[in-house]
């Protein structure tokens, strides 16, 4: 709980975000079929995890704050998975 995020890890997070952004933009010039979508969404999720863990202090926060941070995304998952499981499986 008392642990705080160091200056070094903030800067490293930033460089990791830049690398991920470069991969996303680069992949848009390649035709990978369905993997374009999976890669883009996967990278967006990875960036979000980095931003939330380091910039938004979740790595140094207790379980209660982490649960509060996760619930919105959990509900959003229900919305997206249930909606798309309908539209993606229509004949």
């Amino acid at each position: 709980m008392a642990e705080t995020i160091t200056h070094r890890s903030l800067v490293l997070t930033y460089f990791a975000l830049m690398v991920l952004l470069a991969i996303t933009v680069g992949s848009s010039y390649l035709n990978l079929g369905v993997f374009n979508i999976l890669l883009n969404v996967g990278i967006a999720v990875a960036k979000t995890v980095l931003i939330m863990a380091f910039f938004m202090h979740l790595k140094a926060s207790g379980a209660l704050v982490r649960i509060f941070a996760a619930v919105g995304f959990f509900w959003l998952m229900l919305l997206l998975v249930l909606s798309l499981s309908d539209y993606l499986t229509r004949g």
Partner: protein
Amino acid sequence: MAESPVAMQFDDAAQQRQAADLGMWVFLATEVLFFGGLIAGYLVYRVLYPDTFGAASQHLDKILGGVNTVVLLTSSLTMALADQAAEHGQPRRLRLHLGLTGILGLVFMGIKFYEWHKEWVEKLVPLRTEPFIFTEHHPEHAEMFFNLYFTMTGLHALHLLIGIGIIAVLLVWSWRSKAHLSAQIRTTGLYWHFVDVVWVFLYPILYLIK
């Protein structure tokens, strides 16, 4: 280490900080669902009209969008550094990084307005009073794409403008008084980084996926 004074209802500074974080995350959960609803709607239309949505997305400038992503991610770094400066009680460093964050926010808005202007000139803004010109595939489906695009980027920009306003107020407070602003800066940081996260999703789904 300079801490904000502890209010009487809290045992210590850590508990006070946790209460502020919890409150902000509750608000951000509503924001996740607010933008999430729009993203879900967008994805459903994208599944229904994949060809037209793919073609419409080619009309957006992914280089400018990418530059804006760099600007916003950089502003998140400076915000995190401002947060750290406030926690360590370094007012000069706090004002420097807070100022940079606000300026980067304004740069993002400038590039965004330039993009919107380009789309306006290309007659891609779906308004009743203006002709909407899209010659490939189904123009009525492309109109839906641009409706969703302008709604999502518009609401994102509105959030960013509110963030810039809050940062301006915090800068004035930091100049005027010696009060500890670490709690306010930390909470503002959570909001700022969240607006960044929204853009992290909007950029690939609107600009990149063909």
